[in-house]
């Protein structure tokens, strides 16, 4: 008892101090919390990042550099939108880069106007789909639309395959799409024996390279698709089903949500959007490439998660993904302008993605506390 009495004043003092500290901490915490949970957090982050770097690398604000950032964004955004759908239903699509590679080969095979027999004679498509005189639609005015349609179709088919394996056979998405990544990229390489298909029609190449007074075509197309995707994800029955499935699949099942169809659709959208990205990437390089996008996976998942879409499912918005992609492209661009070596670029990018994942956990916790 004595001891307790002696300790009492000290304890009281330390308690008041702790009280003051915790009040100050409470305020910063509230501000931080508000910022972290804000929809525009990543946009603010991008702006702050840009402004901080400006004095150090003035080049970053040069019109040409901004033009580069602006045109690098859209193909990546297309792919990331697809990933957003899958993440919302608590999945993940690692096969997107392989989808991009395969569809770029498929599209190019349809519309190429000339092939070098030395390179392609060994391809299983030689004499079946294409010959020395190019693809089946070489030179036709239908070549480009049909090729793009074929690309989207193949993307959708692979997505259907992934989604069916995940939803119907209950296989883990990580496994299904990892195997998909290996399988489809190998298949793309097999189809053309690792050759790049060039001699694509002028109008197709223009899709990737053309612009209307500094605004690339890709902006108009991907921008329109982003708006359509956001509409789909906010106003429709499907939207609510996506989030329901991603939040709690069992509740969704009991509530009569067609869970299997919703998941399959998410993966199909992922495939189609990967194909859209592939159109721009392959048009930009003017070639169908069996290795297209091989290093893009981290960028896509990274940008989407940085935007705020949760890896745990049930949470995500197209607008967040737009901001995430903006931040990621800005980051990449600035690291290049800083003349950092490749390894440093990778290290910094990796750290940023890790930070984004940590942020995701922090946000989830904050939200859980209500």
């Amino acid at each position, binding site marked *: *008892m004595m*001891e*307790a009495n002696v*300790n*009492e004043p000290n*304890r009281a003092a330390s308690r008041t101090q702790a*009280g003051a500290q915790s009040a100050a901490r409470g305020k910063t915490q509230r501000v931080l919390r508000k910022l972290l949970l804000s929809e525009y957090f990543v946009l603010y982050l991008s702006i702050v990042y840009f402004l901080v770097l400006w004095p150090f690398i003035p080049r970053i604000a040069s019109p040409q550099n901004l033009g580069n950032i602006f045109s690098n964004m859209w193909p990546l955004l297309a792919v990331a939108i697809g990933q957003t759908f899958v993440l919302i239903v608590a999945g993940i699509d690692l096969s997107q880069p392989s989808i991009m590679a395969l569809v770029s080969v498929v599209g190019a095979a349809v519309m190429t106007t000339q092939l070098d027999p030395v390179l392609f004679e060994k391809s299983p498509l030689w004499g079946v789909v294409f010959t020395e005189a190019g693809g089946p639609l070489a030179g036709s005015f239908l070549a480009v639309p049909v090729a793009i349609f074929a690309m989207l179709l193949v993307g959708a088919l692979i997505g259907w395959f992934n989604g069916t394996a995940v939803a119907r056979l209950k296989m883990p998405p990580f496994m299904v799409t990892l195997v998909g990544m290996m399988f489809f990229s190998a298949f793309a390489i097999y189809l053309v024996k690792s050759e790049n298909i060039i001699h694509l029609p002028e109008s197709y190449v223009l899709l990737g390279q053309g612009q209307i007074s500094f605004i690339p075509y890709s902006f108009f197309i991907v921008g329109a698709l982003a708006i359509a995707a956001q*509409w*789909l994800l906010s*106003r*429709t*029955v*499907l939207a*609510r*089903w996506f*989030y*329901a499935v991603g*939040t*709690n699949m*069992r*509740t*969704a*099942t*009991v*509530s*009569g*949500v*067609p869970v299997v169809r919703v998941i399959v659709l998410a993966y199909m959208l992922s495939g189609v959007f990967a194909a859209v990205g592939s159109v721009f990437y392959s048009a930009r390089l003017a070639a169908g490439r069996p290795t297209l996008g091989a290093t893009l996976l981290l960028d896509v998942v990274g940008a989407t998660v940085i935007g705020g879409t949760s890896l745990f499912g*049930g*949470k995500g918005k197209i607008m967040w993904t737009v901001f995430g992609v903006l931040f990621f492209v800005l980051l990449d661009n600035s690291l290049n302008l800083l003349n950092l070596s490749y390894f440093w670029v990778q290290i910094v990018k990796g750290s940023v993605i890790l930070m984004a994942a940590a942020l995701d956990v922090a946000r989830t916790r904050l*939200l*859980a506390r*209500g």
Partner: protein
Amino acid sequence: MSDVILSFENIEKSFFGVRVLKEITLGVPRGKVLGLVGENGAGKSTLMNLMGGVHAPDGGQMLLDSKPYAPRTPSDANDAGIAFIHQELNLFTNLSIAENIFIDGFPRMRWLPLLNRRHMRARTQQFLDAVELDVAPDTLVEKLSPGERQLAEIAKALSFDARIIIFDEPTTSLTARETERLFRLIDRLRSDGASIIYISHILPDVLRLADEIAVLRDGELVAHGQTSEFTINRMISLMVGRAIEQLYPERSAAPTATPVLEVQGVSQRGIVEAIDFTLHKGEILGVFGLMGSGRSELARILFGLDDHERGQISVAGKPYARPSARRSIDAGMAFVTENRRDEGLLMDISIAENIGLVALPHYAAASAGAVKEGRYYDQIGGVAESLAIKSGNIRQQAVKTLSGGNQQKTVIGKWLLDKPSVLIVDEPTRGVDVGAKYEIYSILNDLAADGAGILFISSELEELMGVCDRMLVMSNGEIQAVFDRSAFDKERILRAAFRENG
């Protein structure tokens, strides 16, 4: 030694500016059982979390053995001899009982970084004997029933010589027999000198076990005294702040003779056998059974979540094959699951979207089409209002922030937009406080009066007797008996329920 082991003195606690504990001053009696009751949100859990080192009080202090006690982490609380037996159990299901008991400090071989497994097993066996759990120490926790897990957790508490053991709703997932065994164990722990805090909504249990009872309401201690000073009715009035004349609402309409759900010979090997019954329009048909009797499994089969091998289910005279949740919903069925957290609600999503989820397709031309949001949210608002779900903004507030009773009302609300003709409710009042229970009974009552047939599954016989028109009693997957309201008799019903089960 004073006869108070731990005391709270003027304890204050707020979360985000809301005072959840107001000037609580309360002593926990030494070597006795303190029953702690109150509605959800009354502050019971917060008070216990302060003791357990999960939160720190904003004001006031705790004294343990008359010495200031300010735990910073749960392990501080453990070191002080305070053990928690939680509603959601805290064992690692992939480890054995012995490993769980020693998880905080494995006994080592002297000098060697090896576990002394023999010692672990022997000690664990002692604790298991003490709680009368008759399984080997090496048994994996995942192999244990919920009741056995509870006992394993108590064994863990014994392993660190807990002086104060807190039981938070320990019986929600226990069978009647397991509950009996738990009570005997609590009695013995008390006679061995442990101090116990027993938190429960099941008031008769509290009356039976506790030496003293404390009642919390809205963060205030409204009563504390010897158990002899309390009756169930007094506790309820204290908890809800008004006198409740009756526990169950009056039936407002009589059942009709029009069948809405006909079940013929439904069987699934090892689960249910030859289930036959008819549910009528406007009827509340109770299904009583002990845990493992097949009552919840039957509900899942009827709603099409699980398969059945034989038998026919007809809704409104129309049989349907290959049932699925969607088909059941389209046929006019609704299913309020017993597991609202995992199956009933999207906890992170708003109340409005939860209520809208089932009827959603009816608010758009096509499933990919836009939802007609005006009508959609209007009608959801109507449902929330008619159920008196307490929320400032049902479109913003996530459902997980609601109290248990309001969550349960939301689960029911999900089905009301479609005006179902058959409503299957499984344990709708589990984990719900007294006031909300009454509201839920009234809601079911009103739905029946509006012409729905209600299949009311419960393990609480009292409420079935209070609410139902008829009652089926299940045991071992079969219907053992059917009682009309006039023939309700607790003893006969229980006898039927225990048949086969022994």
